[in-house]
């Protein structure tokens, strides 16, 4: 078995598989993971703030930008993670497989790291396709918990590999003039072809003898350049052909994005339809009113009442945690004006309740800085037309720098607290 593992390792030797390439790809992957982690935390906490947390209302594209980056970087993690696994591939067959307790812990932590990274990015991608049925677990808490496990095991992995990482951080001290890797002083050249103990007559031995007849690659530079070019092209291709869903100037290249700008009712994408939210009757009822209340006052507004108030027009994006976003032109009443009609203090937060049934997003909260913002509207129109029912008719929230899922549609009540 030991000999077989050793043979595997020897057969996998390639100039692009060395500690220096692992360091180069590893840094990019670590950066990508950290970007995904931070942008993910931002989205998580803006939806579930811890006590005392405050969020910015400017720039208005802050949420849109962070989540576009989250998804695009997440997509980029696929080629980077594959490249990283490829660059350290021979280590999968290291002999002996476990050298001691610490080595066992190291390999176990890598197994946790690899497994959770693969599951994280795969389920993240499938979530943008809304293929929840495949999971068998709820996506959001699992994605959130795994993110900590991944970044934690990444920190441990960096600690374990730190001597190698610092040794091969710079290209100039990694390769000799012929382009060959300079091995670590304390260990023999991993790429050296050691004489094999003996050649048996079994099938495996014959296969390896066949492999061994091949000379080692002549040009290590070409091999490495090919490797990095391939990773770069794969990453650039995936980004270029999907990023248009969150970055409008590249919309023309968006052939693989799960959303397309301009596709949906009134040319604006919809995540949750009125039918799915079971509001088709309640939202179109002639009895609909919006009830605004504070601790001391309460008022009800029909849609005509809202239309008779001072109307404001704003350009704000609908931006989803799934990465897509689209800016639209909204018209409606300032939330601040509505809240003032019930004599709420400036420091009041607002709890918005939708007609929607059976969703955790039916009730959302706005902190005082969002309530008082000039751009926060109870919107009645979008892009010059009355709101489509799928966009939240008769009235919906639209505020700057907020996740789409908190831009509550089919408003029913607004309570200050």
């Amino acid at each position, binding site marked *: 078995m030991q000999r077989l593992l050793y043979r595997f390792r020897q057969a996998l030797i390639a100039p692009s598989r060395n500690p220096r390439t692992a360091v180069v790809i590893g840094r990019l992957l670590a950066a990508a993971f950290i970007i995904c982690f931070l942008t993910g935390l931002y989205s998580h906490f803006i939806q579930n703030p811890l006590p005392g947390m405050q969020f910015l209302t400017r720039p208005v594209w802050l949420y849109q930008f962070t989540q576009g980056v989250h998804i695009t970087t997440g997509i980029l993690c696929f080629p980077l993670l594959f490249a990283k696994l490829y660059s350290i591939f021979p280590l999968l067959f290291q002999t002996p497989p476990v050298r001691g307790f610490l080595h066992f812990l190291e390999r176990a932590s890598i197994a946790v790291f690899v497994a959770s990274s693969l599951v994280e990015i795969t389920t993240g991608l499938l979530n943008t396709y809304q293929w929840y049925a495949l999971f068998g677990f709820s996506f959001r808490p699992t994605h959130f918990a795994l993110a900590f496990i991944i970044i934690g095991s990444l920190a441990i992995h960096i600690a374990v590999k730190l001597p190698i990482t610092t040794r091969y951080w710079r290209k100039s001290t990694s390769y000799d003039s012929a382009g060959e890797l300079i091995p670590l002083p304390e260990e023999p050249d991993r790429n050296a072809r050691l004489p094999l103990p003996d050649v048996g007559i079994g099938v495996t031995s014959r296969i390896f003898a066949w492999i061994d007849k091949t000379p080692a690659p002549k040009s290590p530079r070409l091999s490495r350049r*090919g490797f990095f070019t391939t990773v770069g092209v794969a990453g650039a291709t995936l980004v270029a052909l999907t990023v248009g869903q969150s970055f409008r100037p590249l919309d023309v290249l968006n052939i693989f994005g799960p959303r397309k700008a301009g596709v949906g009712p009134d040319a604006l994408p919809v995540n949750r339809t009125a039918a799915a939210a079971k509001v088709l009757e309640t939202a179109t009822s002639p009895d609909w009113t919006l009830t605004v209340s504070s601790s001391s006052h309460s008022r009800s507004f029909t849609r005509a009442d809202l239309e008779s108030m001072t109307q404001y027009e704003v350009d704000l994006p609908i931006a989803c945690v799934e990465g897509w976003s689209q800016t639209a032109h909204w018209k409606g009443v300032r939330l601040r004006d509505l809240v003032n009609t019930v004599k709420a203090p400036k420091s009041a937060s607002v709890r918005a309740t939708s007609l929607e049934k059976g969703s955790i997003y039916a009730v959302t909260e706005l902190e005082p800085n969002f309530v008082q913002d000039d751009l926060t509207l109870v919107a009645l129109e979008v892009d010059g037309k009355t709101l489509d029912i799928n966009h939240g008719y008769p009235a919906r929230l639209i505020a700057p720098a907020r996740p789409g899922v908190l831009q509550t549609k089919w408003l029913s009540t607004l309570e200050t607290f």
Partner: protein
Amino acid sequence: MALRNTRIVLVLFGLALMAIGAYVAWIEVNHNQYARVIEWLIGALIVHDGIIAPGVFLATLLGRRLGGRIPAAVIALVSGALVVGGIVALLILPEVIKKAIGTASSSILPQDYALHLGVFLVVLALLTAAAIAFYARVFARRQNLRSPADQA
């Protein structure tokens, strides 16, 4: 000493984050879904170590065996194109399947991904072929330039 301290700090930081992860998993993830999450994690290792790794192993061997006969640049181009096409297909095929199953709204997965993937792979193949043809011409010209000098 600095290296040692950095490593200790990183390990402690990592353990703290993993503890947060475990706590979040305990508090927020429904306990009867744990088995399914673990299935996914083990499944990921099986797919990687059991399917992708041996596949890459065989491809590496093939590449090495062909190494003597076909110019390294051509092998690099073809293997590069196969990897790019493979990764794109790996990410987009689930999208094709999910679109066929159906979505909750017409603005989710609105594009014809099967067609787009097909066109993409054809364009990739054509570009690769063109790059190989270009390389072959340059290579032949270099050989022609070199041979008279070699004879002299």
